[in-house]
């Protein structure tokens, strides 16, 4: 079975973002970038399925600027076989992402699409579910286990109160949650090998997709700050403050 995996280049999740003073967005110039953590889990899952013999080929897709080629190379160093970059300069909102992924899926005909559940930049948590909708495929969002059995898959999803188990027909779209796996580190020899793997660049127009944003960002601001707190010396003082000052216990 062929698997298609999507990856997004985002600001490194350990970097504290700064809001631009003109309120137009957050500062991205000279900021460390990385593969979105949930996309890393998606790539890892595909590679493990290939190692286990359930998957024959892994195609990794990214949507973004030329720099997203780095993210595709990282995915290929982890074990993906080839990359496709849909090159877009400006903002691409989740619905447009889903339309682009659908267009690539129509061409590639994978048996399974694995996507991160959420990108940690705009925190939308939409693309996987939207892609499934546009394809008319079943979905398993927030997945923590997946076992393929012929033309269906048994999946476990993380839900608010615990876990949910489903059987979904294939082809399907799966989005990854944290506990699906722990992504591997890429090794230098694999980084070198990844440089030789095929990477195709396409434009949204060639896929027939209009990526004009539907949501207009009017402004981006810093969140309200919490007022400074106080240090207490021991548990007795802490309990006294909670009882007499904050009055919460």
């Amino acid at each position, binding site marked *: 079975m062929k698997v298609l995996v999507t990856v997004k280049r985002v600001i490194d999740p350990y970097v504290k*973002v700064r809001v631009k003073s003109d309120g137009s967005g957050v500062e991205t110039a000279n900021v460390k970038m990385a593969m979105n953590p949930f996309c890393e889990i998606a790539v890892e899952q595909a590679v493990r399925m290939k190692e286990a013999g359930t998957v024959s080929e892994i195609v990794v897709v990214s949507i973004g600027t030329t720099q997203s080629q780095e993210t595709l190379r990282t995915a290929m160093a982890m074990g993906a076989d080839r990359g496709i970059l849909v090159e877009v300069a400006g903002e691409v909102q989740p619905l447009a992402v889903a339309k682009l992924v659908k267009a690539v899926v129509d061409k590639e005909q994978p048996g399974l699409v694995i996507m991160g559940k959420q990108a940690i930049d705009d925190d939308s948590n939409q693309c996987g579910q939207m892609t499934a909708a546009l394809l008319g495929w*079943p979905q398993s969002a927030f997945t923590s286990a997946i076992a393929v059995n012929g033309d269906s898959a048994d999946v476990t999803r993380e839900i608010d109160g615990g876990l949910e188990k489903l059987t*979904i027909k294939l082809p399907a779209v799966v989005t990854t949650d944290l506990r699906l796996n722990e992504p591997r580190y890429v090794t230098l020899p694999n980084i070198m090998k990844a440089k030789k793997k095929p990477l195709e660049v396409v434009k949204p127009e060639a896929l027939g997709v209009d990526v004009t944003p*539907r*949501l207009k960002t009017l*402004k981006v601001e810093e969140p309200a700050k919490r007022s400074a707190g106080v240090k207490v010396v021991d548990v007795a003082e802490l309990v006294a403050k909670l009882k007499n000052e904050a009055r919460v216990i």
Partner: protein
Amino acid sequence: MAILVIAEHDGKQLKPGTTNTVTAAAKIGGDITVLVAGTGCAEAAQAAAKIAGVQKVLLADAAHYAGGAAENLTALVQGIAGQYSHILAPATGYGKNFMPRLAALLDVQQISDISAVVSADTFVRPIYAGNAMATVQSSDKIKVITVRATGFDAAGEGGSAAVENIAAGADTGLSAFKSQELSKSDRPELTAARIIVSGGRGMGSGDNFKILEALADKLGAAVGASRAAVDSGFVPNDYQVGQTGKIVAPELYIAVGISGAIQHLAGMKDSKVIIAINKDPEAPIFAVANYWLVEDLFKAVPEFTAAL
């Protein structure tokens, strides 16, 4: 304007985020209809009819709406969506699962996780783990929105809406529900608790969470955890508070052995009172705490429990 709120429920009762979503709908302004779809959920529909400000409740009861049922639920809502200007659901695991699917079927760019309503087409939503707040305006004909419960008060009771049965949609057959394994706990749910006691990597093991549970039981609190504690396998994923876990805003949040990574702060920094116990005097969690104590948690927590 006509607004549809999709209720989250367990068949008998509404889940806490539903009433906050009704409040968000009321801020947009218009007639509010609540859809209760599920398997054996007539009681939940009666509960929805009692929410203040709700004009009508639609009840769709069928076996193929068990569990999350994104494929079947979106097919149902797609059929009635044309009657509404806004469709809202709580931004919980439930709402996040099916709402983007619905939005794509309607060719709408969903607005995720709104924390404030500016006008009928303009909303505020957190991005970058809540480190920035974006004000966005939608040009879509139908607004598909998920609502961050902590941004809105819960709507009270006092309504007496009529409950109307609607025909269930067809079973798409794409997905079959097998089972749910819900964590059993006598403690309150994280998203509904007045007090939360959370543990992080500093707890050292799942076994050590017992001292937090003892404290939580004294306070009538829920127990949560940071992503580090979940990643380390100390506790299940549904304990997770943070950017990719649950968003909470209790009256009192007690962070124990939690350093305060960006992604954890994203899930709890709107709590009314935050206290932090950590032996590291440089822990970033102290920056958002009202009170902080630099001490070994294995000494401080049992002392805290004993002092109550």
